[in-house]
């Protein structure tokens, strides 16, 4: 009985959360910036976590997170409630990160972060990190999602709005280039 009550309360609270989120989205669509600020506060941690996977500098993480929410505000009328709002926001964040990575070709900024962290073989880690910095931004992006986030091809396709074939082709190319880099290194 106690468990059932807790389950019912849990279900209710989930419904409440969904309702309140839908309400915030509706209000934001009507131009209510306070409602949008509440939406931002609700999802900002997830967006920062995701942006932090791609960018080392805090100001870049912040910039990508801000850009994500600005795009969300401008495109809110395209959000369809048949999927969770968080998925839609994730897609926007990934696209922002992807666009930013593409813009800064030749700047190997994203993946140099962990060379200072303790490791069994710091020299080898540093060497590998330098090799990874030679990957093109689109290649790094796909490898981060596959090997970093551990997402499947289907998950990447769904979250980015790409076709599975597109993801497979990109993944194949990225892995081929990674292999070549590791062989040459």
């Amino acid at each position, binding site marked *: 009985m106690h468990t059932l009550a807790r389950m019912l309360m849990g279900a209710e609270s989930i419904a409440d959360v969904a309702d309140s989120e839908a309400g915030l989205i509706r209000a934001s669509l009507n131009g209510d910036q306070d409602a949008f600020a509440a939406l931002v506060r609700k999802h900002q941690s997830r967006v920062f976590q995701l942006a932090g996977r791609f960018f080392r500098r805090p100001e870049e993480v*912040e910039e990508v997170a*801000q850009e994500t929410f600005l795009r969300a505000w401008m495109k809110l009328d395209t959000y369809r409630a048949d999927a969770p709002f968080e998925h839609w926001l994730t897609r926007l964040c990934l696209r922002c990160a992807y666009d930013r990575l593409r813009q800064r070709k030749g700047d190997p900024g994203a993946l140099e972060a*962990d060379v200072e962290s303790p490791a069994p073989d710091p020299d080898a880690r540093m060497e590998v990190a330098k090799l990874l910095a030679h990957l093109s931004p689109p290649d790094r992006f796909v490898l981060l999602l596959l090997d970093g986030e551990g997402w499947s091809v289907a998950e990447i396709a769904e979250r980015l709005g790409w076709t599975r074939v597109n993801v497979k082709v990109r993944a194949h190319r990225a*892995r081929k280039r990674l292999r070549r880099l590791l*062989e040459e290194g």
Partner: protein
Amino acid sequence: MDCRTVRDRLTRSEPGSEVAVADRTHLDACAECAAFARRLELARETLRRPAASADAMEPDASFALRVVERLPKPAELLGWAALRALPAAVVLVLALLWIGVSQPPAPDYKDLLSESTSPDLVLTYAALAPEAGP
């Protein structure tokens, strides 16, 4: 088994998945492929770690306010709407100008007094200036 096949399989394998027995046997015997496998594992480890430090991955309390400050103001949106309507407005003005320029000049009232005035000219004048005339 050749090095190329083993490296290809390792690169395409899921991170953290078991290495096949045949590949493991090859890695034990081939130092170059074993070094490649170690570098691949390190590369994947590096990819698994977030690029940013833990601090950078947490928004501060005023983040939402900074976002709201950057939201386009209604005036800016009006400006954008006006800018988007500009080409249509230019086309409209040009079309009106063209209509005005291509319109034949109104016949002079004196022309109607001549004996050779055609009935068409009289009708045109009547249509363009019905209130004028003799």
